Structure formats: structure tokens, C-alpha cells
């Protein structure tokens, strides 16, 4: 069992707070992806788990053992580095066997285990080669093999696919998912690529400025983003965010802004309130009874199977994504439709998601409340 518990972990570099009081409980067998833009603290957090960067505050437990002050080599964790960090002077075989030699295993045992791992990763043919004679994908597999051979409590991976070309990345993604399923081990995986996160993770932890913005399954973080940051980070193009006012009209709430009048599924009579309205580009369409957004087309992008239209609504850019052809031309004035259930509301000041409870829209304070669905 290798549950990883991170308790109120902080890391400060002088004035800069790279990791800010993060609490995270990673269950045994999870594939947890730490996702965020560069500089959000995700790599620092991973390095803290590995023991390469000491924490300023907080504790880390592995399988209920406090490992906060234990050196990396005694932590029972294996790491795959972004640059792969293969030893240039050693053959593939000796690279993979390196951790076992460091632990003084017998020669025969090392050889057997290296062969087994090479078999799994399809590296048997390459065992005699040096790293510089390998392609990027092969190097990546060797780095994986070096982690695998140790049979560690958990795997830590720091953007292991970012040096591969697009096609290889897609292939390796499914291989990693397959490997995780087969090993039933704990994976902690750092990336800035939302596609990697959405496709591989069992849970995603989104970080921004060292803070944990949201933790949840890929479906949860995509369908119920906890903040404007999460909403604006996930999706390609990401969620449209418009400054709007929440007004009650005839006993029903509407989100209103220049060019926007979106009725919501909430029957209530509330004082007017400043909010941010969010709608995903794929939830906007050109057909329907009553248009909720009015804008002018500025650009149409062809993605092959789909098209993305960029419009200006009021003075905000709004994207619409739909099957090709959308039959739009630059300069067209169009009305866009969307179902009320596709509207996301966020507090203007804090950026946190607003959920409907009882008869008041409230700003949730504790993260646990964020996942409550709007009734």
C-alpha cells in the first residue's frame, strides 16, 4: 500500500511562495495528475514528495510513515525526470540496473529483473546501446524502466512526455495508462498539458500560484470548475467568461451583460449581484428559439472536424465550437443559444464557483462544498 498524504505543505524560496499550504490525500493505486501553468508550483510539490526539495512547512506521509525528513533514497519512491536523466556513460542495461546496483543486489538478480523490465517496455533489443544512440521515445522508455525495476511504492513523473513529438506523445499516453492499470501502483504525474491530465488521470489536482484550486476526477473538474481559473484553464478553447449581473426578472434569475441575457434554471427573487458567467464553447450553438448572446464574428478557425468561431460580445471575446461547417463569415452578426443548465456562475470578487443551495446563491468557502451541484 502506498497512500501519500500531504499535510499543509508549503515551500518558500525567499520572498516567493512556490507551494502554499497544500493538503492532498493520494490513495493507493491512484493516477493523480498535478496540473497547472508553468510556475504554479506543481514541480516543486513533486520534488518535495521525492525529497529533492525540502519543505518549509508541513508534513508528507507515505503509507502512514512520516517521510518529511527522510532522504530520497530511503523513501521508496521512483522518479522519471523531464530530461529522462539517463546516465550517458552507461548502457541501457546498466542504466536500468543502476538502482539495483546501488542497493547491492546480486548480479544474477539484477540481470533477471532488468531483462523482465526490458521485456515489458520492449527494450530487449536495445540493452547494449548507450543513451545517445536512442531516439527520444526509447530514452523515455529507458527512464521508465529505471523507475519500474525498483518496484517502488509510488511513481513520480515530472512532465515525462514533454520532449516527445505529438504522435509519440499520444501513443505513450495510452501506454502509461495501460502500465498504471497493470501495476495498480500509485502514480503522481506533473504536467501542464490538459489533454494528458484529462486522458490519464483518475484524479486531477489543479494548482495556481502555489495554491490548490481544485481536486477531482477529470469529469468533475471539467464539468464543475471550482473557480474562474480552473474554468479558464481547461478546455480548448477554454470556457468563455463574461462579467455579468445576476438580476431577478419575473421571479426568475437572469445573467445580464451587454449583448447577453441568459435565463437560468433558478426561480428566485434576489437583489442584483456582480458575477462572472461561464459557458463552454461547445455548449453554444447557432440554432434555437431564443438567442442568449449577441455578437459579431471576428475569426473562424478550421480544426478539421470542427470549427471554432471567435466573436465579440459586448467587449468580450467569446468562442463557439461546433461541427464543420458553421457557415459563418467574418463580420456576421449572430445570436447564440445555450441551455440554462450549461451556465456556470462565479463570484466576481473571489472567482469561486457559485452554487445554489436552499434559496440563496452563496460563495462556498470550504472546498468540500464546491462539488455540490446547483439544484
Amino acid at each position, binding site marked *: 500500500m502506498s497512500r501519500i498524504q500531504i499535510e499543509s505543505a508549503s515551500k518558500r524560496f525567499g520572498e516567493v511562495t512556490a507551494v502554499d499550504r497544500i493538503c492532498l490525500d493520494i490513495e493507493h493505486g491512484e493516477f493523480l495528475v498535478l496540473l497547472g501553468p508553468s510556475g504554479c508550483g506543481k514541480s516543486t510539490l513533486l520534488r518535495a514528495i*521525492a*525529497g*529533492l526539495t525540502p519543505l518549509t512547512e508541513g508534513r508528507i506521509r507515505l503509507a502512514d510513515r512520516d517521510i518529511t525528513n527522510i*532522504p*530520497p*533514497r530511503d523513501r521508496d*519512491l*521512483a*522518479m522519471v*525526470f*523531464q*530530461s529522462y*536523466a539517463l*546516465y*550517458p*556513460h552507461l548502457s541501457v542495461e546498466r542504466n536500468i540496473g*543502476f*538502482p539495483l546496483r*546501488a*542497493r547491492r543486489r546480486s548480479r544474477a538478480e539484477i540481470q533477471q529483473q532488468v531483462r523482465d523490465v526490458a521485456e515489458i517496455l520492449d527494450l530487449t533489443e536495445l540493452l547494449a546501446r548507450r543513451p*545517445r544512440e536512442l531516439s527520444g521515445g526509447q530514452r523515455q522508455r529507458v527512464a521508465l524502466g*529505471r523507475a519500474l525495476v*525498483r518496484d517502488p511504492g509510488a511513481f513520480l513523473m515530472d512532465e515525462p512526455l514533454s520532449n516527445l513529438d505529438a504522435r509519440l506523445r499520444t501513443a505513450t499516453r495510452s501506454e502509461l495508462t495501460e502500465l498504471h492499470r497493470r501495476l495498480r501502483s500509485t502514480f503522481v504525474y506533473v504536467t501542464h498539458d490538459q489533454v494528458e491530465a484529462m486522458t490519464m488521470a483518475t484524479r486531477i489536482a489543479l494548482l495556481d500560484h502555489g495554491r490548490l484550486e481544485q481536486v477531482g476526477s477529470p469529469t468533475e473538474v471539467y464539468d464543475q470548475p471550482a473557480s474562474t481559473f480552473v474554468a479558464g484553464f481547461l478546455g480548448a478553447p477554454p470556457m468563455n467568461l463574461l462579467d455579468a449581473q445576476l438580476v431577478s426578472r419575473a421571479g426568475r434569475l437572469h445573467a445580464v451583460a451587454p449583448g447577453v441575457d441568459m435565463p437560468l434554471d433558478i426561480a428566485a427573487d434576489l437583489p442584483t449581484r456582480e458575477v462572472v458567467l461561464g459557458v463552454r464553447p461547445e455548449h453554444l450553438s447557432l440554432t434555437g428559439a431564443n438567442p442568449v448572446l449577441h455578437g459579431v464574428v471576428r475569426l473562424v478557425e478550421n480544426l478539421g472536424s470542427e470549427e471554432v468561431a471567435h466573436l465579440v460580445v459586448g467587449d468580450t471575446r467569446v468562442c463557439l465550437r461546433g461541427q464543420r461547417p458553421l457557415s459563418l463569415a467574418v463580420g456576421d452578426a449572430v445570436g447564440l443559444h445555450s441551455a440554462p443548465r450549461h451556465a456556470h456562475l462565479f463570484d466576481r470578487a473571489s472567482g469561486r464557483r457559485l452554487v445554489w443551495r436552499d434559496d440563496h446563491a452563496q460563495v462556498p468557502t470550504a472546498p468540500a462544498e464546491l462539488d455540490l451541484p446547483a439544484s
Partner: protein
Amino acid sequence: MTDSWQDPRSRRWRAVRGHAVLAVLGLLCVFPIYWLYATSLRRPGDVYSLSPLPWPLSWQSYADAASKVDVLGLLGNTTLVAALTSVGQLLTGLLAAYAFAAWEFRLKRVLYLAFVGTWLVPFQVTMLPNYVLLFQLGLLNTLAGVVIPTLCSALGVLLLRQHLAGFPKELLEAARMDGRSSWTTLWTVVVPNLRPALAALAILLFVNAWNEYFWPAMVLRRSNAMLQLGLRSFMGTEGDDWGPLMALAGLACLPVFLLYLVLQRHIVNAFVRSGLR
């Protein structure tokens, strides 16, 4: 400007000029060495001759040198001293540079500057205290006395730290994750990947130690146990014995020359690119 670069005639003219300058500089560098060997190969009576070719050739000077001093013994002693000095400097330099490059500790910058600062202290300042210390330890007139005070060199630390600063940090971290201690990481990961730099530095330090004259002369006083000191045997109040002097000096140059030929590839590697990657 781009036009003159693209014009083949002006480009060739530039190349010719460049090569001419290099050729003249090369000749200037080589000439004294040539003259050394030329003089050593003249007949004893022709030593003061100014003819550019030593003709007829004669090995008489080498025979004279061999009869007056124990050439092989001197060569052995000098090799021993130079080897011990350079290995010692390499080892201390490697350990210090590794600490400075791979570890974080308090006052790291200050300590490093202090280390480098010792380079700026002239030899003449430390010479007398070292001499007195050697006298008290009873090491005067011994080869150990020549070697021990020179076992640590700021130059070695400086150069190796530069190389180690460019060493991929992730390799060191990977070794840490893989279960190596700092000490075993140094020997199993750092040193094998630093071989070109170490070879280049080894040669540099060896040549430095080989060419040292003043310090051995002080410690060994009147005995002429090293090649460079053996040269003194041919300098006298009534004039220098140029033929054997040049022969011995020529012999003294040979080992360094051979070393350079053998390790040249490493030296070029280390100085042109860092040798890593």
C-alpha cells in the same frame, strides 16, 4: 558588408592573411624549441655557431650530460613528484569543486571566493612559512617536502567547479533517487562523465608541476634530485656548458610532449566543448 563576405576573392584574401599571421606566430613559438634541440645536436665546438642547421650532427652533448648527471634517476624523481602533485591536486580539486557545485550550504559563496582568493596570493608570500614548516617537520631535502605543500591548487578547484556547474543537475538527482549517496554519486556518475575535463586538467597540472623550478630548488637546496635542478650542474661561474645543458633541457621536455600527444584528443574535447551531453 555582407557583399564583401560573399565575394569569393575577398574571402580568400582574408583567409590567406589570417593564415599568414598564424604561420608567423607559430614560427615565433616554435623557434626557441627548435634552437634548443639544434644546439644540443651540434658538435661541442660548434655550440656558438649561428648556422640554422646543426651540421654535422653529434650526440656528444647527450653523452656529456649523461656522464655528469644520473639522467634516468632525475627523470624518475621528477616524474614521481609531478605525478603525485597533479594527482593530489586533481583529487582535492574534484572533492572541493563537487561540494561547491552540488551542495547547498551556508557561506558557500564566501568560502568559494576565499578559495579562489588564495590564487591571488603570490607564491613568494607563502614560500617562507611553508619553508619554516617543512624545516620543523624535518622534510627539507626530501621529495615529500616538495610535494606536500602543493597538494591543493585553487586552479584545479576553479576549473573543475566550472565544469561541474554545467553538469546536468537532474543526473545528480536521479542518482539520489536511485539510492546513491553523495560519495558514491561522485564516483559512479560524476567522474565517468567528467573524464575529458579531468584528463585536460590532469595534463595542465602535470605540466605545471613538471616545469616548477623555484620551489623544488628551495626545498631540495644543494642536492640536484630533479631534472630542472640537474640543469644547474652545467651552469658555472666561468660560463655555462651550453651543449649538455640544452641536451638535458631537451630531454626534460620530451615526457610532457609525449603526454600531450597521447591525451591530445581529451584536451581538445575539454576545451572546445564541455565534453558533456
